[in-house]
């Protein structure tokens, strides 16, 4: 099976979908003349022409709304939001409209749209280095996906485009270059199914998106030290599939939740709550969470490195859990 990057996997899925269905089109900032901010859709304008992929003005609410209206009217837009930070300007469109239209009109209209939201950091400081996964995962009516492997990236992008509901597709600039085996042919990976990536008996590490490859690295290092960690990749944040998580937790009785977000009130907080409620009978140790330190992202390289999670942060949290230590979350 070919080994390709996460970005190439996304590109293949988008290209396949564009070839398969003329109703699929891409809009976003700098997707044509600049030929794609991060390169995911590089070369598409040559292949598909400028009606199928179109540069949008810097008006995030504007083109998000344009996409939603076009989706209601029978098309299948893929909206690239440049980064998740700028997508904040489109929250009204996504939360009050895309997520509500099917419900509040009693099912008369559907909104088959995909919003691609790249996260990331890299000395970009406070406004350009954030994660808002929980904002979307909070909203009934949205489907929120954040694949952690190239295989899932390709299959879930195709599934997202074919889905009749609005899908928030969370990407990460730090995962684009991660490589993995990906079949050449087109396929879908179902939305709404978590995945046991690695079985283990000592601790269950729950993760998704960018943290998944980091957790995989951490698990390998832990194995060298004789610690057998299971990994459950959530892949979808709403609707959440807790079954593989609980199933693994039943065996390990210990959990670490690794997400790249400010820890308090994040997606990880929900997973922890579910483990306490749905998995209460199996808990043997405090559940730990790994995430950003709760500061606005600083610019200086050493500060940035200190406040973001690494494989070592996951390894450390696992050891704390195995030692039965309690976790204190610092907010100031």
């Amino acid at each position, binding site marked *: 099976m070919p080994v390709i990057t996460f970005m190439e996997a996304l590109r293949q899925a988008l290209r396949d979908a564009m070839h398969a269905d003329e109703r699929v089109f891409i809009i976003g900032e700098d997707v044509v003349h600049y030929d794609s901010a991060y390169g995911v859709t590089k070369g598409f304008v040559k292949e598909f022409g400028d009606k199928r992929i179109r540069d949008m003005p810097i008006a995030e609410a504007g083109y998000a709304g344009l996409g939603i209206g076009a989706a209601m009217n029978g098309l299948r837009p893929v909206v690239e939001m440049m980064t998740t930070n700028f997508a904040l300007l489109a929250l009204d469109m996504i939360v009050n*409209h895309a997520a509500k239209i099917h419900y509040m009109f009693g099912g008369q209209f559907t909104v088959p749209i995909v919003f691609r939201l790249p996260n990331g950091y890299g000395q970009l400081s406070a406004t350009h280095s954030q994660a808002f996964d929980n904002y979307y995962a909070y909203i009934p009516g949205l489907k929120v996906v954040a694949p952690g492997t190239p295989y899932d990236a390709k299959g879930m992008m195709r599934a997202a485009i074919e889905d009749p509901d609005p899908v928030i597709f969370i990407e990460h600039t730090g995962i684009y270059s991660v490589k993995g085996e990906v079949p050449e042919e087109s396929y879908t990976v179902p939305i709404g199914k978590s995945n046991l990536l690695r079985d283990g008996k000592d601790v269950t590490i729950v993760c998704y998106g960018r943290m998944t490859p980091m957790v995989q690295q951490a698990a390998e290092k832990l194995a060298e030290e004789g610690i057998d960690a299971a990994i459950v990749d959530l892949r979808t944040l709403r609707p959440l599939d807790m079954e593989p998580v609980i199933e693994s937790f039943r065996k390990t009785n210990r959990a670490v939740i690794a997400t790249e977000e400010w820890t308090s009130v994040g997606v990880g907080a929900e997973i922890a709550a579910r483990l306490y409620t749905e998995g209460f009978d199996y808990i043997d140790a405090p559940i730990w969470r790994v995430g950003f330190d709760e500061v606005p992202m600083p610019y200086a390289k050493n500060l940035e490195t200190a406040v973001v999670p690494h494989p070592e942060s996951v390894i450390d949290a696992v050891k704390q859990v195995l030692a039965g230590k309690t976790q204190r979350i610092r907010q100031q």
Partner: protein
Amino acid sequence: MDKQDLLADYRTMLLIRSFEEHCQQQYTRARIGGFLHLYVGQEAVAVGAIGALKPQDHLVTHYRDHGHALARGLDPQPLMAELFGRQTGTSKGKGGSMHFADDAKHFWGGYAIVGAHLLLAVGIAYGIQYKREVLGQDDDGVVMCFFGDGATNGGEFYEAISLAALYKLPIVFLCENNEFAMGTPLSVHTAVTEIHKKASPFMPGERINGNDVVEVREKASAAIEHARSGQGPYFIEAMTYRLRGHSAADPQMYRTREDIAARRSNDPIELLKQKLLDEGLLDNKKAKKIESEVEKEVEAAVKFAEESPAPELSEAWDDIYAQPL
């Protein structure tokens, strides 16, 4: 332009008025809940402009949507049932007054976030253009989007007119300038009180008399023709006046009874009635007959709503997704 049937328009305006008066009564009896924004006084705008649309055209509006729905030909019975929160309502009792819609009539709904639906309307128009240019369909539809003067200060308004102009979309923006945004007078909420001028760098537009159904019909027809013929968007600012409160719960501290009384002479229904009487198209006997027909139609709608079942509790969990996982 298809010939305007003034008697039919008169009847529809009366239907809207009567529907709204009944809504007010039912609200007072607590059979209608939530926000109830009545359209009393603005009927000529909806009837004149929506009357100029063809079946393949599209309609998008805000929360003050009863008049627009009725003018587009929606049946008063499921509308009243929606207000009562019944299973037989247009949105199965899940939308209420602010979210009337009818898929089959290309009535894409009333929306309750001020200014936001202009962008959805732009998207629907983009969809028409895409279907024509990429999918090769011969869709010649036009979108008409209604909103108030208060919706023209926020960013989404400017993003909408800017995108519509950039892509030369087939859309007519129709601002109903009723001189108030909730309780805030026009001159207090905007520096540019001639609202159509806000759009003038982007598209042609004009201010019209929104209380004259003949003028509205004529100007709307021309605007729709402009959009349909590929010349891009058009902006109409229809001057009108809301004779009731912003919503049924509004104590109207921002204006006096005299202010409102002075505007009654401009009541679009009275103006049209006088015209019809003057032109011999209507006499008092015929007028009475129409009034009583309309009254019966709305009473039947109230009865239908009363007799309809409330939604099953399981309905709360339906329609969150088109495809639940």
